[in-house]
């Protein structure tokens, strides 16, 4: 235990802390981008023209049907070869590991979040929307006052699950050398030949974060339960 404290209070502590901060930034920002893009995809698929729906369906299926690691490799190693010419100049998708990781997470998350929102839309009883129209709410008001609150309640549990999944996926980014928590702890583990110890500690930290996220999710669910409605 004293040796552990030595790591945390010593110079390694700062590296571990910066790794943890990067993990949390990647997790929260990636999830937020993923959720926003996912919401837009779900709205576009519901209200947009049919070809757009099919195009987005293809996007969602491709992202959900391939491993995140392969997507990260494609983005990070393949990006520099993905160039677009604008007259004289050509621009390539050359990203540093962190940017590639964040972009990859956002794209990955958007596909899954969009499916959650889509099922959420579908689960709102038609009668509620018809009732809103009858009492004179316009489409935007219906969206803001009826659809969004009801959907929040419907999709919250799966949103929490997905956000937990996003946290776990951030660890994969260490493979493309993003300097997040696993990457930093790996360095120490390799140096001190303490693999089992370092991975055990990593597992415990992620486990704790996941449990905290789950608890927050349950608290939010309890608090938002006034929006719950009986299924007809």
């Amino acid at each position: 235990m004293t040796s552990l404290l030595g790591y945390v209070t010593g110079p390694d502590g700062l590296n571990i802390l910066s790794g943890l901060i990067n993990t949390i930034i990647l997790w929260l920002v990636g999830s937020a981008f993923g959720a926003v893009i996912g919401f837009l995809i779900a709205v576009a698929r519901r209200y947009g023209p049919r070809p757009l729906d099919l195009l987005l369906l293809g996007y969602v299926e491709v992202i959900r049907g391939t491993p995140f690691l392969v997507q990260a490799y494609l983005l990070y190693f393949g990006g520099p070869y993905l160039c677009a010419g604008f007259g004289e100049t050509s621009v390539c998708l050359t990203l540093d590991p962190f940017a590639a990781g964040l972009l990859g997470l956002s794209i990955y998350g958007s596909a899954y979040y969009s499916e959650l929102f889509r099922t959420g839309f579908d689960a709102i009883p038609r009668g509620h929307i018809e009732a809103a129209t009858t009492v004179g709410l316009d489409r935007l008001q219906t969206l803001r006052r009826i659809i969004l609150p009801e959907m929040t309640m419907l999709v919250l549990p799966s949103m929490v699950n997905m956000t937990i999944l996003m946290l776990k996926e951030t660890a994969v980014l260490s493979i493309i050398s993003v300097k997040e928590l696993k990457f930093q702890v790996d360095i120490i583990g390799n140096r001190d030949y303490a693999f089992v110890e370092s991975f055990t500690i990593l597992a415990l930290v992620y486990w704790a974060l996941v449990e905290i996220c789950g608890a927050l999710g349950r608290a939010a669910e309890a608090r938002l339960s006034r929006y719950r409605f009986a299924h007809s």
Partner: protein
Amino acid sequence: MSWELFRLLVEASGFTILYSAASIVLGFFLSAAVCAGMLSQNRAASTAGRLFVSFFRGTPLLIQLLLIYYLLPQIGLNVSSSVAAIIGLSLCTAAYQAEILRGGFQSVPRGLVEAADMCGLSALATFRRIRLPVAVRLTLPALTSEAIMIIKSSSLISVVGVVELTTMAKDLASSTYQPLPIFAAAGLIYLIINLVVAGFGLTAERAARRGHA
């Protein structure tokens, strides 16, 4: 990208399928035990089952794989990296499948079980004839998704040096300097495998529904 490279990727995907299938099957048997533990009246068994599920669902698979890979030799089990990988994948999927099965068993309508009881079926017969088939039928879609999840997650075993589709793609990409087409092709192969599995899942659901209202 040449056909030769694509052929190498397809060959490597055989290992992906092999490792995934082995893990899903092993994981299913393990999950049955974990699920039985969770649903058991015995405090210790249910706590152990719950802890197992919470740990393996609460930590990144990448870290589980690395932990198992380095832990096994330390406790005197010198197994090859592919065996360590299968153990890691099986433990992880067992946790997810146990949670799915638990949900399935708890959704079996009480009336069915009571009716079986009234007809004089023994506890074992009720389990074998009523609760198990109904639970499996209810959980087939979730089990299919979990199988697809494991096929995708099997890409992570490349980090412990096991040869499979992602390892092959990574090696080919760095030796040919063609990462874009090679990783895209690898993604395509994963997509095809998963579409086939999803198709099997739908067929199995349809077969399971046959004869049931």
